[in-house]
């Protein structure tokens, strides 16, 4: 599952302890967007707890892929076949 996690402030770009493959984007409104693949809900909660422990302000957590990925894949496939 891919998730977008928005937090207040520009977080350092080089933090490497984030769970695998999360990218950080600094947005002009003074927020950061963490984006990437999160293996499961447990990992997502773990990430949120890490943000909590750094006293970061959480603004939004949104999935960036719909949960039913397989369905979408099938739709895309049928579209290309047309």
């Amino acid at each position, binding site marked *: 599952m891919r998730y977008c996690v928005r937090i*207040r*402030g*520009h*977080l*350092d770009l*080089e*933090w*490497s*302890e984030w769970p695998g493959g999360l990218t950080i984007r*600094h947005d002009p409104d*003074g927020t*950061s967007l963490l984006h990437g693949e999160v293996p499961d809900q447990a990992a997502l909660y773990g990430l949120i707890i890490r943000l*909590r*422990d*750094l*006293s*970061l302000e959480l603004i939004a957590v949104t999935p960036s892929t719909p949960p039913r990925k397989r369905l979408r894949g099938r739709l895309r496939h049928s579209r290309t076949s047309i």
Partner: protein
Amino acid sequence: MPTPSPAPLLLSKITPPPPRRELLPRSRLLALLAGWEHPLTLIAAAAGFGKSTLVRQWLFQIENREVRIEKAGQATDHSSFSILNSSPQVAWLSLDPDDNDPVRFWRYLLGAIERVHPGLDAEIGAFFQGPESGLEVIITSLLNQLQQAGRPLALVLDDYHVIEQAAIHRGLSYTIDHLPAHVRVVLLSRTDPPLPLSRWRARGQLSELRAAQLRFTPAETHAFLVDLMGLDLAPDQTGVLDARTEGWAAGLQLAALSLRGQADPAGFITQFAASHRTALDYLIDEVVAQQPPTVQHFLLQTSILDRMCAELCGAVVEEEGRKMKDEAYTAGSDQAGTLILHPSSFILQQIERQNLFLIPLDAEGVWYRYHHLFRAALRQRLQRQVPTQIPALHRRAAAWLAGAGLTAEAIDHAVAAGDHAVAADLIEAAAWPALLGGETATVQRWLDSLPAALCSTRPGLLLWRAWSALALPDGPALARAVSEAEPVLAAHEPPDSPRWGELLALKGWLARDSGMAAQSYELSMQALARLAPDDSILRGMVGVNATLAAWAMGDYGLARTQAEAAIAHADRAQNSFLTALSRSVYAQMLVDEGQITQAEAHARLVLEAAEARGLARWPIYAFCHVALAEVALLRNQTAIARQHVEATRTLLSSGVFKDALTSALQVQIGLARANGDPAALEALLVQLEQTQRAMGMPAVEQSWHVQRAWLALLEGRAEQAAEQLDLARVDSAARMARALLLVIQGRPDAALKLLDGQPQPRFARLHGVAATQLIAPLRALALSAGGQAAAADQVLGAALSRAAVEGMLRPFLDLGAHLAPLLEAQNVKRKAQNDPLAPFIQQLLTTISSQRGTPAMTDLGEAVLRSPFYALRLVEPLSPRELEVLALLVEGATNPQIAARLIITERTAKKHVTNILGKLGVANRTQAITRAREVGLL
């Protein structure tokens, strides 16, 4: 393995951090804190909002007020006594993720309270106590003790957000619901804990301090930066900082630290305000960058530590320190020279002086920790800069901690270093104290933190897996662990090593659980031959198993020797659990032996000792109450028996020790029968059946068929008794019941053969009465029924003499309806001889006759009076010849046919038939057949 005690508590976890005055007093918050009297105060906010600092200021205030009041009290009188009393004492517990073990959590919580309430009974977590079972008891006992102590107490739990165990939340929630009025709990947490907060809020039992209140107001920010930190800033500048950090305490402190080293404070403030970087990142970089390289290096490297002292820091940063030392020598630097003398303590002092988020954990200034937030930020930087060095840092920390005996912390670092073999060594050394302390969950967590492949090659780890399964207790897991461990031991351990001793001990336990007593005993002996002579706890455990096994084999002498050895080991180990276990097993053996006065004394002694130590509510003591209930039942002291049954049930309310519960149920069945309450009897029998089925216990232990059969026999329902006995497993209790059935069926010789030829029925109870104590009365019955009146008289007389000494009535009362004629005969004879036993027999007879009038019998009314049981009591049993005639009657044979078949005269045949009709109390042959069926003769 010498007898270890449970792992000692880390004092720094339960020592309140030294009170701090130098920080800006948060007067408005302190006033709130001091004014609240709710059972729970929740201080919930993100890291760095000054939660702990606020509570430390509160402590400072409390201590100073006490000093002031004490001085005032000396000067005047005791008028301020009540105020002094209202100042709470503070018990402090700093939690960490390792505390997610209910037993460990409560051990520490009790330890924290005991610091301020000396004399509190803080013993917890016995080996082999069900994981949560003991805690309910401990919590209730704690609440009672706090209630009695009556001193105001504030219980501060710092970092409660690390707790994830539902069992801990449940326990704390219960505690808060039942808190004495003078005790309050203060929880510090980054998240709202999963406790019934809204219920407490609605009932006015909760006061809260949250981020909104904890934030510094602009005025507070100004006071902090200018008055306290001595910065030369204008109100608009402090206003900017307040807005940028949003009154976040950690941010303000970092800002103050950064500003101290700034040549251009105004420029710094402007840049900081304009930056989008998070305040933490921005400021920590500033603060760290201002430190000299050695300090920066120190900060980063020590950030792997949960807590630190100078020596530990020295060990962790050692390598670099040595390099610096060498460099310093080549450079000839004096400053470096100072550093070399006591580098780490020097740097620690320096860091503390600068308020670099270093929090002292004790008053002596030995142990410190970094502020969580500061540490997290440092760790990020360490990870970013030198990720490859991190395992080495953990490795050095583990080595030092292990050397200092702080094994639990060493294990975590060894695992973090990836040194699984080192961690395994440490776990092998630390597991036993942890298990003794009841921290089964901790041991399992350690074992789970190692790769499975490593575990399966190390005999020691496999054994700990097994012991923790036994401690839980989890039978299937134990069997699995033992079978996994055996081949590994075979490959790695000499056959006479103590580890083999442990494995054999565990196998012995399993063997007895499956009813293989002789094998279990043999395994225990093999274990004892291998275990270290000074390993008192394990030797005691094995001794208990050997006692039970020898007893099940019927060898009293052997069992007694083993029991005495086990008790001696338990005393030497000073382990309350083992003492209670070994002594209550011994008491039950004494009940079997009919030495109930001694059994009673023994069980009472254990309970009194437990009472004196405040441990009497431990489930393990249920076994003592069972023994006392059985003793009272044997003496027909029903009220006392009932008390001990109640005590047993209360102690076992959490569902542990089902075997003790079934014993108590049996006593209850005996009591219900003594009371003549058929409805209660039926309910109890159903309950016994359900309990034993739910236990999934081996059939050999399931006694409910036998108990039903016994009831049927005593009520004269021979046919039903036979049915139940056919279903029951043939154990010693079943044999007793079968013997009585045979007597009733007129086969006394078979009954005698059964009674004489079988091993003693150890631990078997029939309606709570030790089956051993039924042997002699049953033999007397069988002998009498077989026409051996003199022998019956002698057997019964001897049994009565023994019973009279102990005041034991119940076995004779249970068989009362059958025994009454024999007892009457004894009574007449002994009265005439002025025998001292006569009053005892008279008492038995009086009780028996009054028993007949009890509701049970009258409820049954006519049915009872007409019952074969009743009838048989009045008439002689049928002789073997008469039984043969009866069988022919059933076939419909006439007198001449009978005579022909049995080769007797017709006159003799007729006489037999008349005798049969007379003995059965019927008028004709048809009635005789019906009655014979009722009696169970057919």
